[in-house]
Every structure is written in structure tokens, then in C-alpha cells.
């Protein structure tokens, strides 16, 4: 058997799954978003669903909210994860505990984290109780709204909780493979602690940070259960809105849901493009 034939046979099952389920799912979603479904007699594709979506105020609110959630969570997680990785690469009291908790956190599903954040930060949650005990608030309603709130603070807190370890582990692996030699050289040449971090270490770990950020941004943009637990009703995050439209009793809303799914897919395709461009550049060095 030739190598060519062997490669094709080895790849065939996986490609079948990916092409049929993943790309098939995308293609059908795209067709339905254009109201094109020959099976049920819809043979004239049109842009009705997109017109409906792009002329609705709710969609723009949802899109902006979701973008805000993804951008803010990714940014905060990145900064804190780099800090955590800097901490974890040297020995200090409690390092092994922190290391274990990083790994543990990676295995905990987002849904559990979301419920935990709800019990911590809701107006009758643990922090509100603490505020009452310390005489800061008199009743639950005095506690600031941190969940079901317009700024999606609860959602962002959950993502930060979950993504610090995810980005941190990647950045730490990056730092460990780079070693400390470059920074030592910079320091011996008179660079300050901050300068050697900013001009030596940060550029070296940047590709790793960026690829982790792309994954986090895409995930947070398309996640359903976290905004469904912690988010306000209106405007809802885009995936929540898409799911609502899809399960609407009015079947005519389904193409609109598909159009929103396509918007999410296009945004993640853009992110993949950024990812490839930067990873190529980093290989060239």
C-alpha cells in the first residue's frame, strides 16, 4: 500500500466525522439562515432572516453585550494569568497548593463555576451576608447587583475564575521552555525588573498568550450556560438569544436563530485567521 493511500485511509474516519457533523452542521445552518430548505419546499433563498436580525435593536444590544463579556474577560484573565505564571515559575510558600488548584480548576465544568459565583455574589449570597454582618448593608437589596446585571459582572467573574488557570498553564509552560537566561542577561546589562519583563519576557511569551486569548475569546463568545445562569434577561448574550429564537414556538424565528449562529461562526473564523497569522509569524521568529 502506498503512503498516499495509507494516509487517506487513516484520515478518512476523522475527516468523515468532522466534514459531516461540523462542516455539514455549518452548511445546513447557513442554508437555513437564507430560508433555503428544498426538503420542505423552500427553494427560493432570501435574506429575510438577516434583514430581521440586523434591523432588530435587541440583536445589536446582545452583540455588544457579548463582545463586552468576551473582551473584558479575556483581557482581565490574560493579565492575571501572566501574573500567576510569574508567581508559579519560582518557589514560594504554597506553590504546590496553587499548582494543584490550577489543575483542579481546569477539570471543573463552567456550569458549576457559574452556580458558585451565583451563590457568592447574588444579593442574598455570601458576600452580601458578609456585608450585612459588617454593617455595610441593611438588607439584600442594598448589595450592588453583580449577577443578572447590565454590565455582566457575574459572567465576567466566572470566566476570569475559569480562564486564569487555562491561560496560566499555557503561559507557564511557555516561560519554562524559555528559561530565565535572557532576563538574566538583560538584568546584568542594567535593565530594571520591569524593563526585563516588558522588553524581554513579554515579547517571548506573547504568541502563547495570544493563541490562548483567541481560544478564550471564541469560547466566551459562544458559551450558553454561563450567561443563561448569571445573565440578565434583556439583552441576553448572543448564544442565549439564538437558543431562544431557535426554540421559539414561532417556527419562522428559526432562520433568525441560524443567522445569529452564522454571525458567531464568522466571528470565530476571523479569530482563527488571526491565530494562524500570528502563529506563522512566531515560527518565523
Amino acid at each position, binding site marked *: 500500500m502506498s503512503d498516499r493511500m495509507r*494516509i487517506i485511509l*487513516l*484520515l478518512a*474516519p*476523522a*475527516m468523515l466525522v*468532522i466534514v459531516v*457533523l*461540523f462542516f*455539514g452542521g*455549518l*452548511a*445546513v*445552518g447557513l442554508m437555513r439562515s437564507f430560508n433555503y430548505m428544498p*426538503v420542505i419546499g423552500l427553494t427560493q433563498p432570501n435574506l429575510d432572516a438577516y434583514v430581521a436580525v440586523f434591523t432588530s435593536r435587541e440583536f445589536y444590544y446582545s452583540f455588544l453585550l457579548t463582545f463586552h463579556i468576551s473582551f473584558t474577560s479575556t483581557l482581565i484573565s490574560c493579565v492575571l494569568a501572566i501574573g*500567576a505564571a510569574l508567581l508559579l515559575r519560582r518557589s*514560594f510558600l504554597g506553590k504546590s497548593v*496553587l499548582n494543584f488548584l*490550577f*489543575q*483542579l480548576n*481546569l*477539570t*471543573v*465544568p*463552567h*456550569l*458549576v463555576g457559574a*452556580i*458558585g459565583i451565583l*451563590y*457568592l455574589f447574588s444579593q442574598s*449570597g*455570601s458576600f*452580601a*451576608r458578609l456585608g*450585612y454582618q459588617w454593617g455595610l448593608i441593611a438588607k439584600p437589596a442594598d448589595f450592588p447587583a453583580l449577577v443578572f446585571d447590565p454590565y455582566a459582572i457575574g459572567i465576567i467573574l*466566572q470566566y476570569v*475564575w475559569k480562564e*486564569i488557570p*487555562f491561560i496560566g*498553564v*499555557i503561559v*507557564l509552560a511557555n516561560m*519554562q521552555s524559555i528559561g530565565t537566561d535572557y532576563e538574566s542577561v538583560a538584568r546584568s546589562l542594567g535593565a530594571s525588573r520591569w524593563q526585563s519583563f516588558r522588553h524581554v519576557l513579554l515579547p517571548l511569551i506573547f504568541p502563547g498568550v495570544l493563541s490562548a486569548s483567541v*481560544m478564550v475569546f471564541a469560547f466566551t463568545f*459562544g*458559551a450558553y*450556560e454561563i450567561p443563561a445562569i448569571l445573565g440578565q434577561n434583556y439583552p441576553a448574550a448572543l*448564544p442565549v438569544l439564538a*437558543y431562544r429564537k*431557535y426554540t421559539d414556538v414561532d417556527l419562522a424565528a428559526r432562520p433568525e*436563530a*441560524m443567522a445569529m*449562529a452564522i454571525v*458567531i461562526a464568522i466571528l*470565530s473564523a476571523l479569530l*482563527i485567521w488571526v*491565530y*494562524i497569522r500570528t502563529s506563522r509569524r512566531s515560527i518565523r521568529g
Partner: protein
Amino acid sequence: MHRDPLALRSFRVLTGAILIVWLVLPLVPLAIWSFARGWRFPDLLPREWSLKAWTYALSDTSGVLGSLGLTIFISVGATALSILVGVPAGRALGLYKFRGKQVVELMILAPVIVPGIAVALGIHSVFISLGLTNTVAGVMLVHLVPTLPYMVLVMAGIFANYDPAFEQQARSLGASPLQTLWHVTLPAILPGIIVGGLFAFLVSWSQYILTLLIGGGRVVTLPLLLFNFASSGRNDITGAIGMIYILPGILILLLTAKHLSGQNGAVGGFGKP
């Protein structure tokens, strides 16, 4: 080498401590709620403790154990399918250079970045006509979309450091293809299959929206049950189910801690966003 200034060292210990507390914090109220008998504002701790939530969760009537069994069945099934389909693909990508390899890699990795909901709505439309919606088989199949990329990724890494010459030697010494697979290939790639398999299991285990959509709410896995109890305000039972739900992840972590911790951060534990 001189020691860092005291202020810097104390700053490190302090931030380390804050980080440790923050990482555990969201799990604490869940654990407490599962043993609480009513826990009203403004009590910092429940006035009365009880095992009621646990007794209920572990009883036959609550459906938690049935849901646990179903979730294990779906995740094990999705993992087995991922191994079956993903190991050959990993071999092709790890061992060979070929034209269009980058495109194939990109296609297989795309589901890691493209969110499930973007493809799940379309898959649902197709599964309706195939009679796969609202079925366990349909849910298991759709879980392959997020699990397979991780499996292929891990196996491609394993096969990149694998020497297929051993297989040829075994064959030239008279071993059948099956014997070669069983006695030569499999032992060499087993660590990868275990890590990739556990990874795939955890990815399937944490799926929510794919299960909800394709299962149509009829295939009630543990996360769906957890969500239902959380949104109906049964905090004590939510706490108990939450604890049960995170148990496999902790067990897997303890079992693999030796292999994953330490310098080998490159494996990254079970990192998924």
C-alpha cells in the same frame, strides 16, 4: 545570587494566598449548601446541618443516579468513538508529511475554536430528518465534534515521537498485522490514548448546550439536571449534584497528577477554555 527584597517576597506570598482563596471560593458555598437545612440571609453559615439533600440526591426517586449513569454512558461512548476515529488520524498527522496537511489540521482543529452553538443548530436540523434528535445515540454522536480534535491533537503529538520501524521489524519476524498492533504499536501509544481519552471524557462530561439541543431536553445528563435544580432555586440539592458532578474530574486529576504536574506544563493538564 542575592535574594529578592523582603517587600517583593511578601507581595508574592500575599498574591499567592489571594489566588488560592479565589480559586477555591466558588466551590465553597456549593459544598456548604449540600449539607445545609435552610440557610437564610444573613447567616454566614447554616444554623442547622442536614444530610437531606444528599439522601434525596442518592435516592431512586430523584433521578440523579440514573442521570449520573446516563452521563457516564454517553461520555464513555463518545470517548471510545473518539479513540477509534482519532488514533488513526493522529497517526497520519504525526508520522507523515503530505500535501494539504495544514488544511486537514485546520479542519480537525476548527471545532476547538468555533463554538458548539454555531454548528449545533444546523446539526439539529439534519438529525431531525435522521431521527437522531432526542436520542442518546444522537447526543453521543454530537459530542464527537468537541472531543475528537483533542484526541487527534494528543495522538499526533505521540506519533510525532514514534518510530514505525519497530512495526516493520515485528512483521519481518513473522508477526501478523493484528499481533503487531497489539504487541508493538498499542503499548507504545497507550499513554497517549489514556491522556487523550481522559481529556475527551472530560470535554464530553462538561457539554451542556449540545446535549440540550440534540437531546431536546429528553436526554437529561447531569449538567442539565444541575441547571434545572439551580434555576428552580433548590440550592441544597444543587449543591449535592454539583459535588457529584465535579467528582470524576477530581478523581482523574488525582490519578494522573504524577504525570501532569511538575516541569511538564506543556501537557497543560486538561486545558480547555
